[in-house]
């Protein structure tokens, strides 16, 4: 720039470079020499592009001498591809007076040009000076330099990337070895531990610090000598990997079984390191053992199942048979292969004691598949039908098979109860026979006493009549006792029937009162009826209802002193029918309240007052009530009175089919 400024300063003083005669000829020559000495091509052109002056290099660009070039139009030397661009640039300098610099490539050379306007020089014909320099070498050098730098940069990037990726690999490796449950150890050729991962600490129980400088013998050495000889031979001398199972010992002293793999790291046929990977398989081993044990147990269970005496059949959740035992085949005549996969309900019909086929709803299995455990009793057995059509009574129990809260099937177990049945029948027959045998002499005693007392065969003396009354009274008590015993035996055998039908319970209650009216009149007792007649007919077994109410009422009469009051209430409490008898009698001693429903129990305070009771009445009443779906309870205070309650759903008694009626 400095150079250009000087040049301009000088140039301004050149009046006419075409006329060297003017003033400072020597100075001009100096400038010319200077211009010729510069490495730049210099052109002074006028408004039309005519070369007013140039230097040697400028002329040489176009293969001429300055003399040859001066006076020609510079533009004519421009190659056509850049002609317009250059002319436009030069023109823009002329038009705006602002200098322009540009660089272009022509014939493989980089040419840099600066175009300056020369103010005040227009008159003299030169208006623009162009400095043009060949910067090809410079550019090439620059390019080289840049290329070189780029190459260097690339190299740096590459190695950086390599480093990063190596680091990443290392990180991955560390992550993997740190998190694997396999124990990873790297040792030198002597077995000295160089690296151990976290799992190695966990498995062996030794910390990395404790392992430092040690060999895996720290936890090894549990196998035979031969094992280790073979082991070392394989990895060290044969330079082959070792794979096998070893037993090691943790720091805690606990033994563990491991799946061991040791690989030698070989470089130039020399073993450098060993990489050992160990997996603790103790748990798998245990699980395997457990599975084996379980399989054994299962086999044992199955053997037991197959050989138990009762019939067994298992079904899936759809009721299709999955398994039957030997007794099943023996009892029913069906072979396992004939029934597995079949619907139990379809191929195995059942009947009730009247020979009627049970509907699926009456069968036990569907209930079991809904999660209920259900049984059919000995008293009213189900009859199982064999393959050949014959039948036998059986008690059956069906149980759901539940796994994780889901019902996955059911098991039905059944037992041939033919012999139970015979025993039961014999028992029942004995009881009825005994009662018959007891009742016959009783009948004779009672009837003859009655006839004598009635004077059928002539009048009796006063004392005779008194004694005979005792005999007659005892006979009647005995008849009552026999009746109660019979009922108890039927209750306990479960052979009594409950046959509900629409019944006028108020009629029953009034009848009970009427039956006791004679004794009540004797004791000058009052009776109050509190009946809610809106209840209407109730579905009960009239005989059983009678037994309960009569029990309550006769007890009240018996155990209430003269002039007492007895209240019989029949009312509705929500959905329950409640029959209660309250009295103003002796009551029940506090200490004996919990025994009042026990068989043959009689409270101390009434035993003295009335020697007649059997101690069976309330027991029978409670049994009946509960079997019929009702409840019995009482409230009592000694010497104030008692209230006995019987409640039953208004829907009535539960039906119970049975052979015998209670009396």
């Amino acid at each position, binding site marked *: 720039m400095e150079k250009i400024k000087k040049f301009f300063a000088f140039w301004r003083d050149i009046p006419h470079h075409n006329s060297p005669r003017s003033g400072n000829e020597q100075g001009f020559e100096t400038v010319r020499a200077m211009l010729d000495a510069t490495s730049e091509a210099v052109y002074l052109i006028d408004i039309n592009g005519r070369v007013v002056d140039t230097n040697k290099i400028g002329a040489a660009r176009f293969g001429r001498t300055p003399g040859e070039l001066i006076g020609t139009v510079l533009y004519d030397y421009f190659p056509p591809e850049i002609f317009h661009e250059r002319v436009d640039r030069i023109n823009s300098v002329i038009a705006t007076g602002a200098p322009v610099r540009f660089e272009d490539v022509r014939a493989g050379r980089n040419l840099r040009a600066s175009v300056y306007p020369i103010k005040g020089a227009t008159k003299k014909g030169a208006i623009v000076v162009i400095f043009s320099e060949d910067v090809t070498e410079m550019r090439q050098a620059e390019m080289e330099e840049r290329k070189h730098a780029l190459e260097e940069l690339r190299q740096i990037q590459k190695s950086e990337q390599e480093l990063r990726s190596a680091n990443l690999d290392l990180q991955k490796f560390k992550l993997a070895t740190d998190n694997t449950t396999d124990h990873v150890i790297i040792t030198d050729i002597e077995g000295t531990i160089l690296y151990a991962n976290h799992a190695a600490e966990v498995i062996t129980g030794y910390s990395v610090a404790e392992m430092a400088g040690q060999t895996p013998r720290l936890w090894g050495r549990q196998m035979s000598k031969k094992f280790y000889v073979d082991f070392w031979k394989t990895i060290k001398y044969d330079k082959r990997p070792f794979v096998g199972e070893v037993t090691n010992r943790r720091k805690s002293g606990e033994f563990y079984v491991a799946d061991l793999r040791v690989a030698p790291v070989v470089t130039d046929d020399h073993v450098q390191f060993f990489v050992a990977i160990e997996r603790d398989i103790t748990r798998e081993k245990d699980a395997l053992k457990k599975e084996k044990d379980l399989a054994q147990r299962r086999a044992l269970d199955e053997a037991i199942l197959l050989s138990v005496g009762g019939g067994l059949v298992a079904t899936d959740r759809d009721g299709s048979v999955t398994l039957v035992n030997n007794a099943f085949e023996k009892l029913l005549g069906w072979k396992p292969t004939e029934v597995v996969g079949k619907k139990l309900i379809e191929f195995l019909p059942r009947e009730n004691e009247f020979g009627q086929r049970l509907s699926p709803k009456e069968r036990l299995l569907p209930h079991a598949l809904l999660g209920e455990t259900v049984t059919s009793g000995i008293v009213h057995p189900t009859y199982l039908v064999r393959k050949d059509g014959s039948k036998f009574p059986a008690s059956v129990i069906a149980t759901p098979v539940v796994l994780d809260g889901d019902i996955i099937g059911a098991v039905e177990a059944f037992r041939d109860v033919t012999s139970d049945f015979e025993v039961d029948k014999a028992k029942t027959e004995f009881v009825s026979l005994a009662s018959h045998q007891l009742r016959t002499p009783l009948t004779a005693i009672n*009837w003859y006493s009655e006839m004598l007392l009635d004077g*059928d065969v002539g009048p009796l003396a006063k004392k005779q009549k008194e004694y005979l009354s005792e005999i007659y009274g005892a006979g009647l008590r005995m008849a009552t006792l026999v009746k109660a015993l019979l009922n108890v035996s039927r209750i306990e055998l479960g052979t009594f029937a409950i046959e509900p039908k629409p019944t006028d319970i108020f009629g029953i209650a009034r009848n009970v009162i009427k039956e006791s009216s004679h004794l009540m009149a004797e004791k000058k007792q009052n009776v109050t009826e509190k009946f809610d007649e809106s209840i209407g007919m109730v579905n009960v077994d009239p005989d059983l209802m009678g037994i309960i109410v009569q029990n309550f009422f006769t007890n009240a009469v018996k155990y209430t002193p003269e002039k007492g009051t007895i209240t019989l209430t029949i009312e509705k409490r929500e959905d329950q029918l409640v029959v209660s008898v309250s009295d103003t009698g002796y009551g029940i001693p506090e200490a004996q309240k919990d025994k009042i429903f026990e068989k043959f129990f009689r409270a101390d305070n009434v035993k003295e007052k009335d020697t007649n009771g059997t101690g069976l009445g309330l027991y029978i009443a409670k049994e009946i009530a509960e079997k019929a779906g009702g409840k019995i309870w009482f409230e009592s205070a000694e010497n104030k009175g008692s209230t006995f309650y019987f409640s039953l759903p208004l829907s009535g008694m539960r039906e119970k089919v049975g052979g015998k*009626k209670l009396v």
Partner: protein
Amino acid sequence: LIFPACGWKEIKNIMEDQKKTILVVEDEMSVQNALADKFEREGFEVLRAKDGAEGLKAAIGKRPSIILLDIAMPKMDGIEMMRRLREENEYGKSVPVIILTNLTADDKITWAVAKDEPAYYLIKSDWRIEDVVGKVRETLAKEKR
């Protein structure tokens, strides 16, 4: 004719039962005797049998107005005797039978009584002999109608 010791009711009863014959079928002699004595005193003509076979023969041969029948007896039980009697003829089918037993009614008895009406069922030891007489008279009165 004067019945100084009797009220009108008794006279009426005696008049009505004059020709009434009762057959007592009972193997227990003490009980049979009690019933026979009682009914004789009540003015009945009493026939006796000590088992079902005898009873059946007496019933068919002498056609009593009513039969008191025990159940548990040797040779032929009461239920069987009643079954055969009902099958015998018109008389056998219609004669009232009161089953007088000490067996509790089980299904078999209940069924037989229900099927073989007119038949009634009484537990001996639960009944006073006076009430048995009452039941017989009541039954005969019903039969008459």
